[in-house]
């Protein structure tokens, strides 16, 4: 890398016009169209364009961001002579979102969803030896659609290969940052405590935030896993969830002659995930009787399978209208106590029927159970259902695929299965 002259234009121009969307302390963001898609283009402010530290920080931001891949991290597309191009995120900074939508934070499920997405994103960074070091609401976007978190701005991050040009924002920085001390994951945890403290969250978040804000890093949560554990909602129905897992495992072992095919989603999905890391314990701990009644698979939208009476889709799935309440299938639920938890029963009646069907269907799968669940319900209840299954240790995949106006939600007990 020798020194030399460069005659590149100082300001790369993009076609289809540019619209300034944000002016920060170091950069100016424009929304531009490239290849028919909207992108963010980020440039240094003119007064900083000649400062080699900011130039290096921008390069570091691109190289770091480009090497990461997580749904809650904004994607980096291109590094130019004087700009970074990244995916366009239709969202607002976290503090603005909190000011306009306090209801999201007042609701336990949606608040946890946002907070856990943020924590998962930071945990991902730490697992890749990246410290963000500039966590603050301005660097956390909440998407307009779906209210998902997008973490941005790695310009002041620390990585193994970019050890200089680390930075901070004084109002959100940990004490060790402010005095030039050693930084580590606990430094980001301090900033997360500041963020949690600033949001209109329920009281239990305040207690965790206080521990994050301990001046001595040794007294804080030592990593994101500990903070996640401390904040995770208590599992109200661990027995029911464990029993469901046992039913999945045992009937998968018993019912091997009834392979099941599932309808394929029409488009890519939004994935809400949490590690299924507790399956072994409930399976070992519980003693259950085998389930003998195989359950037919749900139909596909384009090619409904010819169904025998035993394989016919259950009525609740085909019929989008709310169905009367039914008791769970006796063979499965009675022996395995797989009746839906009490709080689920408060949902709409058709949702409850679908949940009953969920447990019955669970018995028809093999070693790698996949549960197709069709529902027609209100978005808030849908989010509550997602939260319920995620908390129980499942992966939930929400598809745009629909069958008779019902959205398909797939619940997996292992990622990718």
């Amino acid at each position, binding site marked *: 890398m020798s020194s030399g002259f460069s005659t590149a234009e100082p300001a790369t121009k993009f076609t289809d016009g540019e619209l300034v969307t944000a002016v920060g302390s170091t950069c100016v963001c424009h929304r531009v169209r490239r290849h028919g898609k909207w992108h963010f283009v980020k440039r240094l402010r003119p007064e900083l364009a000649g400062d080699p530290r900011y130039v290096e920080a921008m390069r570091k931001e691109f190289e770091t961001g480009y090497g990461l891949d997580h749904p809650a991290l904004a994607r980096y597309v291109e590094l130019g002579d004087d700009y970074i191009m990244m995916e366009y995120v239709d969202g607002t900074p976290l503090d603005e979102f909190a000011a306009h939508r306090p209801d999201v934070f007042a609701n336990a499920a949606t608040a946890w969803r946002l907070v856990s997405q943020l924590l998962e994103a930071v945990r991902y960074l730490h697992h890749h030896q990246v410290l963000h070091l500039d966590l603050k609401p301005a660097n956390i976007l909440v998407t307009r659609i779906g209210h998902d978190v997008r973490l941005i701005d790695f310009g002041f991050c620390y990585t193994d290969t970019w050890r200089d040009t680390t*930075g901070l924002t004084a*109002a959100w920085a940990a004490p060790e940052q402010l005095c030039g001390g050693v930084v580590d994951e606990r430094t980001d945890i301090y900033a997360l405590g500041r963020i949690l403290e600033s949001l209109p969250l329920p009281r239990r978040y305040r207690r965790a935030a206080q521990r994050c804000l301990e001046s001595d890093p040794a007294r804080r949560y030592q990593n994101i896993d500990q903070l996640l554990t401390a904040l995770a909602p208590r599992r109200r129905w661990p027995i029911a969830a464990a029993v469901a897992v046992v039913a999945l495992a045992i009937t998968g072992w018993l019912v091997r002659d009834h392979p099941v095919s599932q309808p394929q989603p029409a488009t890519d999905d939004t994935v809400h995930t949490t590690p299924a890391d507790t399956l072994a314990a409930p399976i070992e701990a519980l003693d259950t009787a085998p389930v003998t009644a195989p359950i037919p698979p749900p139909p596909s939208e384009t090619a409904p399978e010819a169904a025998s009476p035993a394989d016919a889709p259950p009525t609740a799935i085909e019929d989008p209208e709310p169905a009367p309440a039914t008791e769970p299938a006796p063979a499965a639920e009675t022996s395995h106590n797989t009746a839906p938890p009490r709080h689920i029963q408060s949902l709409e009646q058709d949702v409850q029927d679908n949940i009953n069907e969920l447990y019955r269907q669970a018995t028809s799968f093999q070693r790698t159970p996949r549960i197709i669940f069709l529902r027609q319900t209100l978005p808030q209840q849908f989010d509550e259902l997602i939260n319920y299954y995620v908390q129980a240790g499942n992966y939930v995949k929400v598809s745009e695929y629909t069958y008779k106006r019902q959205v398909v939600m797939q619940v997996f007990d292992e990622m990718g299965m």
Partner: protein
Amino acid sequence: MTFSPYVISLLQDKSAIDCSSPSAAEMLSLDIERVTGERLGVNTLKRLLGRLDECEPREATLNIIARYLGFPNWSVIERIEAHRCNSDFATVYRELRTTRLAPGQRVAITYLPDRRVVMECAGRGRYCVTESINSKLRPGDQLSLPILVDGFPLIAHDVVRNNQPMGTFTAGKEHGIHWEIET
């Protein structure tokens, strides 16, 4: 409005009062009167500390608190807080903002392996190369140079040689540069 964590930390440092304690507002009111000679209502302080429903304090109230903290007025605290919300580097670098140089002053720049360039300030952010050893810059080159930072590359814009634009010149990409003002 309620006090930000920063302002609360300033109050605590100044008064040695734990602002989270139930009697903080009363003690703070007394201490503010002791220092400034002005008395602030306990309920006003409770609102600003977040213990009562928020209110919009009068400017005079905020200025009293600013003077108690040692600032001329509240707007200074607001500016400091605004700066605290901006991202900045954690490390203090040895830097030279070239606008500090007077016309005629010279700065010597060295970088590996054996490069040395001396530039003379021509005013208005422009510099003229007066000496060049093993560098691609030549004596007589004119350029714009906003800042020099030890350990970082040199980035010179709008380089002109013999009235011909040469573009941007970058040096010391691998190991950075070292600068010294020549006396």
